[in-house]
């Protein structure tokens, strides 16, 4: 078990209950870990930092859209690690890279993150991906998730019910995650 498991589990539990600050802290921490993990793995296959960043974002989105699959009865770190490893294997398999030598059980997520968070960007353009979504979803995500309006405010502004706004956000993010997953795969 990793040393910060209790701390991460507390953050995740709070995030699942809707604590945005805890969620942000958690995702920032995990993105650093994931970056270290993917860089160390991909460097063996001659891939660049931007490829690692693509995977980091793919996983962050997967963690988000599937965050309900974490049960607080279980440890949190193995949950994240299983997703990270799944995405890596899927990525390598799609590229037909030999990965027979990859130690499947290595807990390499423990590798310290390189602190170059600002230097690398993924190959995705958020605005371009958003523009591919249906109008309602775009609007809901822009207002609530980017401009930071509350769901109630966004509902009034776009003349939709609150639950319609929530559904639009949920579906939109799911679509966004699928688009990014598809791009990682291609």
């Amino acid at each position, binding site marked *: 078990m990793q040393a910060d498991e209790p701390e991460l589990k507390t953050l995740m539990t709070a*995030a*699942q*209950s*809707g*604590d*945005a*600050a805890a*969620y*942000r802290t958690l*995702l*920032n921490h995990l*993105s650093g870990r994931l*970056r270290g993990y993917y860089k160390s793995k991909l460097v063996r296959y001659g891939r660049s930092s931007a490829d690692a*960043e693509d995977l*980091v*974002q793919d996983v*962050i*989105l*997967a963690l*988000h859209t*599937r*965050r*309900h*699959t*974490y*049960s*607080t009865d*279980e*440890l949190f770190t*193995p*949950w*994240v690690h*299983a*997703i990270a*490893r*799944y995405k890596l294997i*899927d990525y390598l398999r799609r590229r037909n890279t030999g990965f027979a030598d990859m130690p499947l059980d290595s807990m390499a997520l423990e590798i310290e993150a390189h602190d170059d*968070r*600002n230097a690398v*960007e*993924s190959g*995705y*353009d*958020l605005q371009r991906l958003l523009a591919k979504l249906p109008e309602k979803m775009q609007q809901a*995500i822009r207002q*609530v*998730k*980017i401009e*930071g*309006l*509350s*769901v109630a405010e966004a509902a009034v502004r776009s003349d939709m019910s609150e639950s319609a706004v*929530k559904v639009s*956000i*949920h579906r939109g*993010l799911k679509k966004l995650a699928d688009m990014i*997953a598809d791009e990682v795969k291609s």
Partner: protein
Amino acid sequence: MKTEELISVLSTNVEPIDRRQLSREIIAAVVVGTVAAIGTALILPGMRADLSTEYALAYFCAKMIFAAAVIVVGTIYLLRLARPGAVPQSRVLAVTWPPVAVGAFAALSLISAPLWHWHTMAMGDGWLECLVSIPLIAVVPFVAVVLAVRRMAPTDLVRTGALAGFVAGGMSAAGYALHCTDDSLPFIALWYGGAVLLCALAGALLGPRLLRW
């Protein structure tokens, strides 16, 4: 896009999750699949006519208990496999106890029967029909379970697929039991058990393709 940008989008106004969503969706799929399997069995091969006799009813119940055990045990492990994280091999092997138990009962009933009965007990009238019908009736339940599990996050697609096939096989066996007039424990063990394992095998082969996310 910078990862920080993405994190900022995701963590702004984050909605609380529904902790029971996962189990509710899988259980709903199992209920829908079971109803579909029973419906298919009643419409296509049709209901057996002799359920009023005590003998037939007893074996009907035995088949239903087997099917229910497969569904319940399979669903419990499916709920675990739909979540990312390690599941010990030994715990997943525990799903094999319904086929093993029915096999043990079958062996007991064979031992207590005369040798010249064995062939009829084991083969019945419709072993081939049973072995073909159960996997066919399992198609719709399998699709229902796969659609639900795809919305979760299975990370071991072969095992999850096998378990989805296993549970679908159990649902289908419950439907087929309404039709089947072969009443013996060795028949249930061999052909119901065999058909459910075939479904699990098909699920294991299809899992990596159907469950990928």
